Protein backbone atom coordinates (compact mmCIF):
# COMPACT_ATOMS: atom_id res chain seq x y z
CA UNK A 1 0.00 0.00 0.00
CA UNK A 2 1.36 3.44 -1.04
CA UNK A 3 2.59 5.56 1.84
CA UNK A 4 4.25 8.97 2.08
CA UNK A 5 6.39 9.39 5.19
CA UNK A 6 7.68 12.77 6.35
CA UNK A 7 10.12 12.71 9.25
CA UNK A 8 11.32 15.70 11.34
CA UNK A 9 11.26 18.10 8.42
CA UNK A 10 12.59 21.62 8.99
CA UNK A 11 12.55 24.52 6.59
CA UNK A 12 14.44 27.78 6.75
CA UNK A 13 14.16 30.66 4.26
CA UNK A 14 16.79 33.34 4.79
CA UNK A 15 16.91 33.95 8.54
CA UNK A 16 13.33 32.72 9.10
CA UNK A 17 12.66 29.26 10.41
CA UNK A 18 9.31 28.46 8.76
CA UNK A 19 8.64 25.13 10.46
CA UNK A 20 10.60 22.55 12.37
CA UNK A 21 10.25 18.85 13.31
CA UNK A 22 7.29 18.35 10.99
CA UNK A 23 6.32 14.69 10.78
CA UNK A 24 3.31 12.98 9.26
CA UNK A 25 2.27 9.94 7.25
CA UNK A 26 -0.15 9.87 4.37
CA UNK A 27 -1.67 6.60 3.20
CA UNK A 28 -3.18 5.68 -0.16
CA UNK A 29 -6.61 7.24 -0.61
CA UNK A 30 -5.97 10.17 1.76
CA UNK A 31 -6.14 13.85 0.93
CA UNK A 32 -4.20 16.32 3.05
CA UNK A 33 -4.98 20.02 3.07
CA UNK A 34 -2.18 22.24 4.31
CA UNK A 35 -3.36 25.48 5.83
CA UNK A 36 -1.60 28.41 7.40
CA UNK A 37 -1.06 32.13 7.17
CA UNK A 38 0.76 33.73 4.24
CA UNK A 39 4.47 33.00 4.54
CA UNK A 40 3.99 30.06 6.92
CA UNK A 41 5.77 27.69 4.52
CA UNK A 42 2.96 25.92 2.64
CA UNK A 43 4.53 26.40 -0.79
CA UNK A 44 8.01 25.65 0.58
CA UNK A 45 6.72 22.35 1.99
CA UNK A 46 5.14 21.39 -1.34
CA UNK A 47 8.35 22.31 -3.18
CA UNK A 48 10.32 20.11 -0.78
CA UNK A 49 7.92 17.24 -1.42
CA UNK A 50 8.31 17.80 -5.16
CA UNK A 51 12.11 17.75 -4.87
CA UNK A 52 12.58 21.38 -5.89
CA UNK A 53 13.87 22.54 -2.47
CA UNK A 54 16.05 20.71 0.01
CA UNK A 55 14.97 20.61 3.66
CA UNK A 56 17.26 21.92 6.41
CA UNK A 57 16.82 18.57 8.13
CA UNK A 58 14.55 15.55 8.01
CA UNK A 59 13.57 13.06 5.35
CA UNK A 60 10.85 12.49 2.74
CA UNK A 61 10.07 9.08 1.28
CA UNK A 62 7.28 7.61 -0.80
CA UNK A 63 7.03 3.81 -0.82
CA UNK A 64 10.53 3.79 0.68
CA UNK A 65 11.89 5.79 -2.26
CA UNK A 66 13.78 8.93 -1.31
CA UNK A 67 12.70 12.27 -2.81
CA UNK A 68 15.75 12.36 -5.11
CA UNK A 69 15.16 8.95 -6.70
CA UNK A 70 13.93 8.35 -10.23
CA UNK A 71 10.94 6.31 -8.99
CA UNK A 72 9.84 9.12 -6.63
CA UNK A 73 9.94 11.60 -9.53
CA UNK A 74 7.84 9.24 -11.66
CA UNK A 75 5.32 8.82 -8.84
CA UNK A 76 4.89 12.55 -8.21
CA UNK A 77 2.85 15.18 -10.00
CA UNK A 78 3.47 18.78 -8.89
CA UNK A 79 1.60 21.87 -9.97
CA UNK A 80 2.85 25.11 -8.45
CA UNK A 81 1.43 28.64 -8.29
CA UNK A 82 2.38 29.19 -11.93
CA UNK A 83 0.49 27.21 -14.60
CA UNK A 84 3.71 26.07 -16.39
CA UNK A 85 2.36 27.06 -19.80
CA UNK A 86 4.17 28.91 -22.57
CA UNK A 87 2.07 31.72 -24.10
CA UNK A 88 3.53 31.16 -27.60
CA UNK A 89 2.23 27.57 -27.74
CA UNK A 90 -1.33 26.33 -28.12
CA UNK A 91 -3.14 24.47 -25.29
CA UNK A 92 -2.54 21.10 -26.94
CA UNK A 93 1.14 21.86 -27.71
CA UNK A 94 1.72 22.88 -24.08
CA UNK A 95 0.04 19.72 -22.80
CA UNK A 96 2.00 17.56 -25.25
CA UNK A 97 5.28 18.95 -23.93
CA UNK A 98 4.31 18.80 -20.25
CA UNK A 99 3.13 15.21 -20.55
CA UNK A 100 6.38 14.36 -22.33
CA UNK A 101 8.28 15.88 -19.38
CA UNK A 102 6.27 13.84 -16.88
CA UNK A 103 6.03 10.70 -19.06
CA UNK A 104 2.25 10.68 -19.18
CA UNK A 105 -0.26 10.01 -21.95
CA UNK A 106 -0.73 9.80 -25.72
CA UNK A 107 -2.15 12.57 -27.90
CA UNK A 108 -5.71 11.20 -28.07
CA UNK A 109 -6.06 11.48 -24.30
CA UNK A 110 -4.87 15.09 -24.36
CA UNK A 111 -7.96 16.07 -26.36
CA UNK A 112 -10.10 14.20 -23.82
CA UNK A 113 -8.39 15.93 -20.89
CA UNK A 114 -9.03 19.36 -22.42
CA UNK A 115 -12.69 18.56 -23.06
CA UNK A 116 -13.08 17.42 -19.43
CA UNK A 117 -12.06 20.89 -18.24
CA UNK A 118 -14.39 22.47 -20.83
CA UNK A 119 -11.70 23.67 -23.24
CA UNK A 120 -12.16 21.35 -26.21
CA UNK A 121 -12.83 24.29 -28.52
CA UNK A 122 -9.68 26.04 -27.36
CA UNK A 123 -7.17 23.26 -27.99
CA UNK A 124 -5.48 25.07 -30.88
CA UNK A 125 -5.68 28.53 -29.30
CA UNK A 126 -2.43 30.09 -28.12
CA UNK A 127 -2.26 30.06 -24.32
CA UNK A 128 -1.26 33.74 -24.38
CA UNK A 129 -4.77 34.62 -25.57
CA UNK A 130 -6.58 32.77 -22.73
CA UNK A 131 -7.88 34.21 -19.45
CA UNK A 132 -6.21 33.36 -16.12
CA UNK A 133 -9.00 30.89 -15.28
CA UNK A 134 -8.71 29.17 -18.66
CA UNK A 135 -4.93 28.89 -18.22
CA UNK A 136 -5.48 27.28 -14.82
CA UNK A 137 -7.93 24.82 -16.42
CA UNK A 138 -5.36 23.89 -19.10
CA UNK A 139 -2.74 23.30 -16.40
CA UNK A 140 -5.14 21.24 -14.28
CA UNK A 141 -6.26 19.16 -17.27
CA UNK A 142 -3.03 17.23 -16.67
CA UNK A 143 -4.79 15.67 -13.66
CA UNK A 144 -6.98 13.74 -16.10
CA UNK A 145 -4.01 12.04 -17.77
CA UNK A 146 -1.54 11.77 -14.92
CA UNK A 147 -0.38 8.30 -13.91
CA UNK A 148 1.43 9.65 -10.85
CA UNK A 149 0.13 8.45 -7.50
CA UNK A 150 1.16 11.42 -5.38
CA UNK A 151 -0.36 14.75 -6.39
CA UNK A 152 1.05 17.99 -4.95
CA UNK A 153 -1.20 20.92 -5.80
CA UNK A 154 -0.38 24.46 -4.73
CA UNK A 155 -3.53 26.62 -4.69
CA UNK A 156 -5.27 24.57 -7.42
CA UNK A 157 -8.58 26.47 -7.13
CA UNK A 158 -7.19 29.99 -7.58
CA UNK A 159 -8.74 31.77 -10.62
CA UNK A 160 -11.26 28.95 -11.17
CA UNK A 161 -15.03 29.53 -11.24
CA UNK A 162 -17.38 27.30 -9.19
CA UNK A 163 -17.83 24.84 -12.09
CA UNK A 164 -14.09 24.55 -12.51
CA UNK A 165 -13.58 23.98 -8.77
CA UNK A 166 -16.19 21.21 -8.80
CA UNK A 167 -14.56 19.46 -11.79
CA UNK A 168 -11.17 19.49 -10.08
CA UNK A 169 -12.55 18.45 -6.68
CA UNK A 170 -14.29 15.48 -8.31
CA UNK A 171 -11.10 14.47 -10.10
CA UNK A 172 -9.10 14.65 -6.84
CA UNK A 173 -11.74 12.50 -5.09
CA UNK A 174 -11.70 9.97 -7.98
CA UNK A 175 -7.90 9.80 -7.89
CA UNK A 176 -7.90 9.09 -4.15
CA UNK A 177 -10.66 6.46 -4.34
CA UNK A 178 -8.43 4.68 -6.89
CA UNK A 179 -5.59 4.56 -4.36
CA UNK A 180 -3.83 7.87 -5.06
CA UNK A 181 -2.69 10.48 -2.55
CA UNK A 182 -3.12 14.23 -2.73
CA UNK A 183 -1.62 17.12 -0.79
CA UNK A 184 -3.02 20.55 -1.55
CA UNK A 185 -2.91 24.07 -0.24
CA UNK A 186 -5.90 26.35 -0.58
CA UNK A 187 -7.38 29.39 1.12
CA UNK A 188 -10.80 28.60 -0.34
CA UNK A 189 -13.54 26.39 1.12
CA UNK A 190 -13.13 22.83 -0.02
CA UNK A 191 -16.12 20.49 -0.47
CA UNK A 192 -14.04 17.31 -0.33
CA UNK A 193 -15.12 15.00 2.51
CA UNK A 194 -12.72 13.19 4.87
CA UNK A 195 -10.04 15.78 4.30
CA UNK A 196 -7.07 15.63 6.65
CA UNK A 197 -5.84 19.01 7.82
CA UNK A 198 -2.32 20.14 8.62
CA UNK A 199 -1.79 23.62 9.96
CA UNK A 200 1.63 25.25 9.66
Amino acid sequence: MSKLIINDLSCQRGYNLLFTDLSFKLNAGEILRISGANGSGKTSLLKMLAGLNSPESGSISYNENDVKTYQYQLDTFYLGHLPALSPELSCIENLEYLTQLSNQESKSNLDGALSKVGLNNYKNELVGTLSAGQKKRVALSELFISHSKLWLLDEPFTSLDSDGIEIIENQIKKHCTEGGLCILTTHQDCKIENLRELSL
Partner: protein
Amino acid sequence: MSIFIKTLRRDLKMALRNPSSFLNPLLFFVIAISLFPIAISPESHTLSNMAPGIIWVTSMLSVLLSLNALFHYDYDNGVLEQMIISHHPLPLILLAKTTAHWILTGLPIILLSPLLGMALFLDSKNIYILILTLFLATPCLSLIGAIGASLIVGIKNSGMLLSLLILPLYIPILIFGTSAVSQSQFNLPIDGQLYFLGSVLIFSLITSPFVSALALRISLE
Protein backbone atom coordinates in the same frame (compact mmCIF):
# COMPACT_ATOMS: atom_id res chain seq x y z
CA MET B 1 16.70 11.10 -26.57
CA SER B 2 13.16 12.06 -27.56
CA ILE B 3 12.99 14.71 -24.82
CA PHE B 4 16.00 16.39 -26.53
CA ILE B 5 14.15 16.53 -29.87
CA LYS B 6 10.86 17.61 -28.21
CA THR B 7 12.54 20.44 -26.26
CA LEU B 8 14.52 21.57 -29.31
CA ARG B 9 11.39 21.62 -31.48
CA ARG B 10 9.39 23.42 -28.76
CA ASP B 11 12.00 26.15 -28.32
CA LEU B 12 12.35 26.70 -32.08
CA LYS B 13 8.57 26.84 -32.49
CA MET B 14 8.26 29.37 -29.66
CA ALA B 15 11.04 31.52 -31.13
CA LEU B 16 9.48 31.51 -34.61
CA ARG B 17 6.17 32.68 -33.09
CA ASN B 18 7.98 35.48 -31.25
CA PRO B 19 10.71 36.37 -33.81
CA SER B 20 11.89 39.53 -32.05
CA SER B 21 13.54 37.31 -29.42
CA PHE B 22 16.20 36.19 -31.90
CA LEU B 23 15.97 38.86 -34.63
CA ASN B 24 16.97 41.75 -32.32
CA PRO B 25 20.47 40.40 -31.57
CA LEU B 26 20.99 39.63 -35.28
CA LEU B 27 19.87 43.12 -36.23
CA PHE B 28 22.36 44.49 -33.70
CA PHE B 29 25.09 42.31 -35.31
CA VAL B 30 24.41 43.68 -38.81
CA ILE B 31 23.89 47.32 -37.78
CA ALA B 32 26.96 47.46 -35.50
CA ILE B 33 29.24 46.04 -38.22
CA SER B 34 27.84 48.34 -40.90
CA LEU B 35 28.58 51.39 -38.71
CA PHE B 36 32.32 50.68 -38.42
CA PRO B 37 33.23 51.79 -41.99
CA ILE B 38 31.38 55.06 -41.38
CA ALA B 39 33.00 55.70 -38.00
CA ILE B 40 36.58 54.58 -38.75
CA SER B 41 37.41 54.71 -42.44
CA PRO B 42 35.93 53.37 -45.68
CA GLU B 43 39.47 52.56 -46.85
CA SER B 44 39.75 48.87 -47.81
CA HIS B 45 43.18 48.17 -46.27
CA THR B 46 42.20 49.61 -42.83
CA LEU B 47 38.88 47.78 -42.80
CA SER B 48 40.27 44.40 -43.88
CA ASN B 49 42.91 44.63 -41.10
CA MET B 50 40.21 45.36 -38.50
CA ALA B 51 37.55 43.02 -39.92
CA PRO B 52 38.37 39.91 -37.79
CA GLY B 53 38.17 41.92 -34.55
CA ILE B 54 35.03 43.82 -35.61
CA ILE B 55 33.12 40.69 -36.64
CA TRP B 56 34.25 38.66 -33.64
CA VAL B 57 33.46 41.32 -31.02
CA THR B 58 30.02 42.08 -32.47
CA SER B 59 29.13 38.40 -32.77
CA MET B 60 30.14 37.87 -29.13
CA LEU B 61 28.06 40.85 -28.00
CA SER B 62 25.01 39.78 -29.99
CA VAL B 63 25.18 36.28 -28.45
CA LEU B 64 25.47 37.96 -25.04
CA LEU B 65 22.40 40.09 -25.81
CA SER B 66 20.30 37.02 -26.48
CA LEU B 67 21.44 35.00 -23.46
CA ASN B 68 19.20 36.72 -20.91
CA ALA B 69 16.13 35.18 -22.53
CA LEU B 70 17.53 31.62 -22.57
CA PHE B 71 15.82 30.52 -19.32
CA HIS B 72 13.98 33.71 -18.36
CA TYR B 73 10.58 33.00 -19.96
CA ASP B 74 10.49 29.37 -18.82
CA TYR B 75 11.29 30.56 -15.30
CA ASP B 76 8.58 33.22 -15.38
CA ASN B 77 5.82 30.84 -16.41
CA GLY B 78 6.86 27.86 -14.26
CA VAL B 79 8.00 25.48 -17.03
CA LEU B 80 11.55 25.48 -15.65
CA GLU B 81 10.27 23.96 -12.36
CA GLN B 82 8.62 21.16 -14.35
CA MET B 83 11.88 20.56 -16.25
CA ILE B 84 13.80 20.27 -12.97
CA ILE B 85 11.41 17.78 -11.36
CA SER B 86 11.03 15.77 -14.56
CA HIS B 87 12.47 12.25 -14.47
CA HIS B 88 14.34 13.05 -17.71
CA PRO B 89 17.99 14.10 -17.28
CA LEU B 90 18.05 17.89 -16.78
CA PRO B 91 21.43 18.29 -18.59
CA LEU B 92 19.87 16.75 -21.73
CA ILE B 93 16.93 19.19 -21.60
CA LEU B 94 19.32 22.12 -21.11
CA LEU B 95 21.55 20.89 -23.96
CA ALA B 96 18.45 20.96 -26.21
CA LYS B 97 17.63 24.50 -25.11
CA THR B 98 21.25 25.57 -25.73
CA THR B 99 21.21 23.92 -29.16
CA ALA B 100 18.04 25.87 -30.02
CA HIS B 101 19.78 29.05 -28.85
CA TRP B 102 22.75 28.31 -31.14
CA ILE B 103 20.47 27.58 -34.12
CA LEU B 104 18.70 30.91 -33.57
CA THR B 105 21.75 33.11 -32.90
CA GLY B 106 25.08 31.39 -33.66
CA LEU B 107 24.04 29.80 -36.95
CA PRO B 108 22.57 33.02 -38.46
CA ILE B 109 25.77 34.85 -37.43
CA ILE B 110 27.83 32.24 -39.31
CA LEU B 111 25.54 32.53 -42.34
CA LEU B 112 25.70 36.33 -42.33
CA SER B 113 29.47 36.55 -41.74
CA PRO B 114 30.58 36.00 -45.41
CA LEU B 115 28.40 38.91 -46.50
CA LEU B 116 29.66 41.18 -43.73
CA GLY B 117 33.23 39.94 -44.30
CA MET B 118 32.99 41.02 -47.94
CA ALA B 119 31.62 44.40 -46.83
CA LEU B 120 34.77 44.80 -44.71
CA PHE B 121 37.01 43.77 -47.66
CA LEU B 122 38.05 40.32 -46.38
CA ASP B 123 39.16 38.06 -49.21
CA SER B 124 37.55 34.68 -49.85
CA LYS B 125 40.29 32.64 -48.14
CA ASN B 126 40.00 34.67 -44.94
CA ILE B 127 36.21 34.57 -45.07
CA TYR B 128 36.49 30.79 -45.12
CA ILE B 129 38.72 30.88 -42.02
CA LEU B 130 36.30 33.31 -40.36
CA ILE B 131 33.39 30.91 -40.99
CA LEU B 132 35.44 27.98 -39.70
CA THR B 133 36.40 29.75 -36.45
CA LEU B 134 32.85 31.01 -35.89
CA PHE B 135 31.54 27.50 -36.54
CA LEU B 136 33.83 26.17 -33.81
CA ALA B 137 33.32 29.05 -31.38
CA THR B 138 29.65 30.09 -31.51
CA PRO B 139 28.46 26.79 -29.93
CA CYS B 140 30.99 27.46 -27.13
CA LEU B 141 29.51 30.95 -26.64
CA SER B 142 26.03 29.44 -26.25
CA LEU B 143 27.20 26.60 -23.99
CA ILE B 144 29.29 28.80 -21.67
CA GLY B 145 26.58 31.47 -21.77
CA ALA B 146 24.01 28.89 -20.60
CA ILE B 147 25.99 28.48 -17.35
CA GLY B 148 25.81 32.23 -16.70
CA ALA B 149 22.13 32.40 -17.69
CA SER B 150 21.27 29.58 -15.28
CA LEU B 151 23.15 31.31 -12.45
CA ILE B 152 21.22 34.56 -12.83
CA VAL B 153 17.79 33.09 -13.51
CA GLY B 154 15.25 34.67 -11.16
CA ILE B 155 17.34 37.82 -10.60
CA LYS B 156 15.63 40.87 -12.07
CA ASN B 157 17.55 43.27 -14.37
CA SER B 158 20.56 40.98 -14.35
CA GLY B 159 21.94 41.81 -17.82
CA MET B 160 25.01 43.56 -16.42
CA LEU B 161 25.67 40.74 -13.95
CA LEU B 162 25.49 38.21 -16.79
CA SER B 163 28.05 40.20 -18.81
CA LEU B 164 30.40 40.37 -15.80
CA LEU B 165 30.09 36.63 -15.26
CA ILE B 166 30.44 35.52 -18.85
CA LEU B 167 32.75 38.00 -20.60
CA PRO B 168 35.95 36.83 -18.82
CA LEU B 169 35.18 33.28 -19.99
CA TYR B 170 34.64 34.51 -23.57
CA ILE B 171 38.00 36.34 -23.75
CA PRO B 172 40.21 33.29 -24.61
CA ILE B 173 37.76 32.34 -27.38
CA LEU B 174 37.86 35.91 -28.70
CA ILE B 175 41.69 36.00 -28.65
CA PHE B 176 42.12 32.70 -30.48
CA GLY B 177 39.25 33.36 -32.90
CA THR B 178 40.49 36.77 -34.02
CA SER B 179 44.13 35.70 -34.12
CA ALA B 180 43.26 32.75 -36.41
CA VAL B 181 41.72 35.11 -39.01
CA SER B 182 44.43 37.79 -38.57
CA GLN B 183 47.28 35.28 -38.92
CA SER B 184 45.68 33.78 -42.00
CA GLN B 185 45.71 37.28 -43.54
CA PHE B 186 49.53 37.13 -43.27
CA ASN B 187 49.63 33.50 -44.49
CA LEU B 188 50.81 32.24 -41.09
CA PRO B 189 49.81 28.79 -39.76
CA ILE B 190 46.57 28.73 -37.72
CA ASP B 191 46.48 25.08 -36.63
CA GLY B 192 47.06 25.96 -32.96
CA GLN B 193 44.12 28.35 -32.80
CA LEU B 194 41.80 25.85 -34.50
CA TYR B 195 42.89 23.05 -32.16
CA PHE B 196 42.30 25.34 -29.17
CA LEU B 197 38.79 26.33 -30.34
CA GLY B 198 38.00 22.68 -31.11
CA SER B 199 39.11 21.52 -27.67
CA VAL B 200 37.12 24.31 -25.94
CA LEU B 201 34.08 23.18 -27.95
CA ILE B 202 34.47 19.55 -26.89
CA PHE B 203 35.16 20.49 -23.27
CA SER B 204 32.18 22.86 -23.02
CA LEU B 205 29.92 20.37 -24.82
CA ILE B 206 30.76 17.73 -22.22
CA THR B 207 30.73 19.87 -19.07
CA SER B 208 28.43 22.84 -19.66
CA PRO B 209 25.03 21.01 -19.57
CA PHE B 210 25.93 19.44 -16.21
CA VAL B 211 27.24 22.70 -14.71
CA SER B 212 24.15 24.57 -16.02
CA ALA B 213 21.85 21.95 -14.48
CA LEU B 214 23.59 22.27 -11.12
CA ALA B 215 23.51 26.08 -11.28
CA LEU B 216 19.83 26.03 -12.18
CA ARG B 217 18.93 23.76 -9.25
CA ILE B 218 20.84 26.08 -6.89
CA SER B 219 19.24 29.23 -8.40
CA LEU B 220 15.72 27.88 -8.04
CA GLU B 221 16.12 26.63 -4.49
